[in-house]
C-alpha cells in the first residue's frame, strides 16, 4: 500500500503519526482514506466545498502532483506521497 508522509505541523491532528500506510489507487483516494482515519486533518487540507486548499503541496517522490495528473495521479505499491508545508518565518 502507498505511504503518506505527514509534515510536523499536521502531526498533532494525526495522533502524532509521521507516516501513514493507506489504501488507495489515486492521490484523491489516499487523501480521503487519511481524513477518514484522522477527521481533524480535513479542515487543514480541504476547503468547506471539499476542494484542496490552494497552499497544499503534494509530492510524489520529487514531483509535484500538479505536474502529473493532479488528484487523479495513480499510486502504486511502494509509492510515497508527501504533504509539504510552507516555510515559516525568517
Amino acid at each position, binding site marked *: 500500500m502507498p505511504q503518506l*508522509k*505527514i*509534515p*510536523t*505541523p*499536521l502531526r*498533532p491532528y494525526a495522533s502524532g503519526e*509521521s507516516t501513514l500506510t493507506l489504501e488507495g489507487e489515486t492521490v484523491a483516494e489516499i487523501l480521503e482514506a487519511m481524513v477518514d482515519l484522522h477527521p481533524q486533518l480535513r479542515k*487543514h*487540507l480541504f*476547503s468547506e466545498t471539499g476542494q484542496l*486548499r*490552494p*497552499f*497544499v*503541496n503534494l509530492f510524489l517522490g520529487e514531483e509535484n502532483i*500538479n505536474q502529473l495528473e493532479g488528484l487523479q495521479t495513480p499510486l502504486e505499491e511502494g509509492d510515497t506521497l*508527501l*504533504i*509539504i*508545508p*510552507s*516555510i*515559516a*518565518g*525568517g
Partner: protein
Amino acid sequence: MQELTPYVKRITLDEGMPSLVGNTPLLPLVTLSDRTRGKTQVFAKAEWFNPSGSVKDRPAWSIIQHALHQGLILPGMHLLDSTSGNMGIAYATFGAALGIPITLALPANASPERLKILEALGAELVLTDPLEGSDGALRIAQGLAADHPEKYYYANQYDNPENWKAHYRSTGPELIEQTQGKITHFVVGMGTTGTLTGVARYLSEHKADVEIIGVQPDSPFNGLEGLKHIPTAIQPGIYDPDAADRIIEIRTEDAYDMVRCLARQEGYFIGISSGAAAVAARQVASEIDSGVIVTVFPDAGFKYLSDEQLWKRP
C-alpha cells in the same frame, strides 16, 4: 569611517549598498482606507526597496555589523544561519560585498526563485527536510554550529538581539517621522518577531498610545510563507509576549485574495506575508472610527511567481 580590515574586503561599514538599508517609502493603501470620510488612513512600509529586496536587510546588516565590531567573524569563518529565504538573501548580499562566506540551512522546498537568487549570490546551501519546515532547518543550523565552532559564526536570527534592535533603531523612528507622529495603530506580521519586538519597544518609549497588533497564521499548517504560528513553532528567543497588545490570526486564502487585490487594484505587487498584514490592517480599519494605521510589507511578489495557485485564482 571605521576600519575593519582584513574582514571587510571591499567596503567600509558606512558606504556602499548597506548605506541604503532602511528609510523605505510609506505607501498609502487606498482600497483599505476610509475613502468616503477620510478619517482612517492605512499605510504600508514598502520593504522591498531595501538593497536585497526585503525587510530582512535591516536585521541582517545589524547582525553582521555587530559581529564584525565584536570580532566574532574571524578570517576564513562562515556566517551560518537557518532561514526561510529572505534573511539568507540579505546575508548573502552583504556577505558578497564584505567578503564573508555565507552558509544557510533552509528547507529543500524553498521556492525556486529563492534558491536561484541564493545560488547567484554564491551562498553555500544546506537543504533540510521539507517535512520539518523552518524548525527543522533551525535544528540543523544549531547542530552545525555546535559541531564546528571554529568554522562558523552562528548568527541565530531567532535569538540574536541585534534582530529586534535593528527595528528599534530604524523602523520605529521611521514610523514616527513618516506619519509626523500621527500613527495610531501598528500592524505587523510575526516571523522571527524582530520587527514586532523592536518597533513595539521603540513606540512604548516614544509614542506609547499606539496600539500594536501582531499577525500570525490561523493554523500551524498554512501558506503564509515567512510568518510563524507562534503557539506551535519553536518560539524565537527574542519574542516578547508583551510586545503586541493583541494578535490577529489570518487564513491563508484571505491573504492570497489580498495579494491579488492589491496587485490588480493598486499596482502593489507584494508577497504573501504582506497580503496577510494587509488583511489584518483592513480588519483594524473596520473596527475604528478614525486613525492612522501602518503596516509592514516585508517583500514584493517576485519570489512567489512560481506559486501558480496564488496568481491564477480569480
